């Protein structure tokens, strides 16, 4: 098809509420149509699979990270409870001073410890 014919079809296709199917077909047959290259579908599916693998890996990492965090947190809480119980048993009270081991100390003895006199 000559270039001028293609141009005329393009202009005529814009007329009316609906395009003329015959003209549309002519234009496509003349080569004015687009398609993706060979293997497009396979490339799309490969990209999707790759993305899915990355997402799976990320979620696996997050899952194992949260498991480790959960275990550390539990161990920490157990250690704190154990410490509080041992303080209560040895000092008979749970206070900030007993936590620091200062229940029996008076100011003078602390000063003498700090100044080494």
């Amino acid at each position, binding site marked *: 098809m000559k*270039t001028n014919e293609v*141009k005329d079809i393009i202009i005529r296709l814009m007329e009316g509420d609906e395009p003329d199917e015959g003209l549309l077909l002519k234009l496509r047959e003349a*080569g004015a149509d687009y398609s993706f290259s060979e293997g497009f*579908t*396979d490339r*799309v599916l490969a990209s*999707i699979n790759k993305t899915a693998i990355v997402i799976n890996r990320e979620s696996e990492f997050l899952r194992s990270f949260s498991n480790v965090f959960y275990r550390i947190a539990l161990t920490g809480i157990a250690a704190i409870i154990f410490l509080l119980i041992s303080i209560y048993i040895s000092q008979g009270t749970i206070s900030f001073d007993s936590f620091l081991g200062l229940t029996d100390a008076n100011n003078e003895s602390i000063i003498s410890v700090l100044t080494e006199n």
Partner: protein
Amino acid sequence: MQKHANKYKEADDSELVKAAIEGDSNAFGEIVNRYRQMVARTVKGMLGDTVFAEDLGQEVFINLYNSLSGFRGEAKLSTYIQRIAVNLTLNEIKRRKRFFSMFSRTDDDEVIEYNVADDSDNEGKRDAREVVNKALMSLEPKFRIVVAMRMLQGYSTKETAEILKLPVGTVLSRLARGQEQLKNILKARRYENQ
């Protein structure tokens, strides 16, 4: 893959969507096969026959895959895919416009043409495609999209309005202005050729 995909050849869109949501990649492959040309017409019609358009085409289907569970079937699957294609393409055009404006280039430079080699084309076909390509690329994006929908997809004014979520009147006026611009562009090119 192709053999397995054949079982979906006769399936309707809703069956394919259901199977694809359940993780059947063959069903999704059939969706891609069914609508790849439609997406190519939109994306390449707007961006030109470039390798970027191929990549964007892939992105359209990846977006579709990720949003498939949200597809409620209120619109046709083709309309849904077309909307994704149009939105991504318009975003890409905006991105390019921003990129090129940093280098003080004109709007006409927004399309980078890297023609994908296609040995099957004969010269006549390549000429026709070039005329269409150049005509479309000379239009402003807001006119280009309605013209491409009409010229490449064969959509009616109503269908275009539905896909672009625009009033029919707006589509009509853009189509008329697009046609006017096309006439001038093609006429000028005709004189150039003589």
